[in-house]
């Protein structure tokens, strides 16, 4: 083997090696961390996935045990007048708290951002904010529905319970800790005529929304199904005063 050939090989190999090292240095500098930290990152990701799995499993278990509890309660109250009464009370309480799926007649309101409006085709004095559905609009609509005697309300599948907050989080609205966005479908169970009439009242909030540019659609519907609140209600401070 000639000496210069060996030298050339070494030169080429070292060139590749330093090139690779340079790329690696630049990459690591760019991400501002070290290689060994990927290991920690992987472990964290692993842990997150594992906890998620555990959480899902626990929620499933909770569901099955709730069903079991229900059946046991039914069994034990079958022959007792007093406890039948109690059982019915519990059921009613759960419906009122929003912990059971319910059906009934009512209305469905759909609110949509007006996507035809852009910065380019809007008037100089017009405000693009007015064409969007905001958290405040939802609060107004829910208030109007409650005032008209709605018995159960849900927004995009999120049940409105005693403990629900509706607030703005940038470009989405957060209800029950879940993000929702346009198009927004509000289902309400109650007297369809009363709800429809009160929500479509001239000068009412929906008319205002429609006037300012939000796309509004209201229709009466039979047998609306409203899902239960799928979170857990924890109380810590309240006790009954007796």
């Amino acid at each position: 083997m000639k000496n210069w050939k060996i030298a050339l090989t070494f030169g080429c190999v070292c060139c590749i090696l330093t090139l690779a090292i340079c790329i690696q240095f630049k990459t690591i500098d760019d991400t501002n961390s070290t290689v060994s930290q990927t290991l920690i990152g992987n472990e964290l990701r692993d842990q997150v996935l594992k906890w998620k799995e555990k959480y899902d499993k626990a929620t499933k278990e909770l569901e099955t045990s709730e069903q079991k509890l229900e059946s046991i309660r039914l069994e034990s109250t079958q022959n007792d007048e007093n406890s039948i009464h109690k059982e019915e009370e519990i059921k009613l309480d759960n419906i009122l708290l929003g912990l059971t799926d319910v059906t009934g007649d009512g209305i469905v309101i759909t609110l949509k951002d007006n996507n035809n409006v852009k910065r380019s085709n809007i008037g100089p004095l017009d405000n693009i904010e007015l064409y969007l559905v905001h958290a405040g609009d939802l609060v107004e609509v829910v208030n109007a529905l409650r005032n008209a005697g709605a018995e159960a309300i849900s927004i995009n599948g999120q049940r409105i319970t005693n403990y629900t907050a509706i607030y703005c989080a940038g470009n989405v609205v957060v209800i029950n800790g879940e993000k929702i966005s346009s198009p927004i479908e509000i289902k309400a169970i109650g007297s369809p005529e009363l709800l429809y009439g009160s929500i479509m009242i001239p000068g009412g909030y929906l008319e205002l929304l429609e006037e300012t540019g939000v796309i509004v659609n209201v229709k009466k519907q039979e047998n609306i199904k409203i899902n239960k609140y799928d979170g857990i209600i924890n109380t810590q401070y309240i006790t009954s005063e007796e």
Partner: protein
Amino acid sequence: MIFIAIILGCVIGLVLGNFAPIISYTYSSYLAIAIVAALDSVFGGVASSLNKKFDMGIFISGFFGNAILAILLAYLGQRLNVDIYLVAIFVFVSRMFNNLAIIRRYYLDKFRKRKIKEAEMAENNTK
């Protein structure tokens, strides 16, 4: 001659590396292990060339083969959730130390021989 070539190669690599693009962070761990494998091959090549046992085929195949094998092992380890790449690094680095020891001994021997020779020469001159 070999060392001049190595230094020249490193300088060219550095210059090229300045203009090289960065890669995705996900692949950087694979590149890192490939670098360690390649570094091991280079030290092995230098050591064997000093011992006059250098073989071009073994060197080139070792350089690329070890790097690719290391990457594949690291990938396999990630899929199996076993840190196989740690073992690869362990093997490569321990071999690197071995080869460095060979190189060190070679030059130390050379240095000592020269000193003895010089001493002999000095002795001869004084006679």
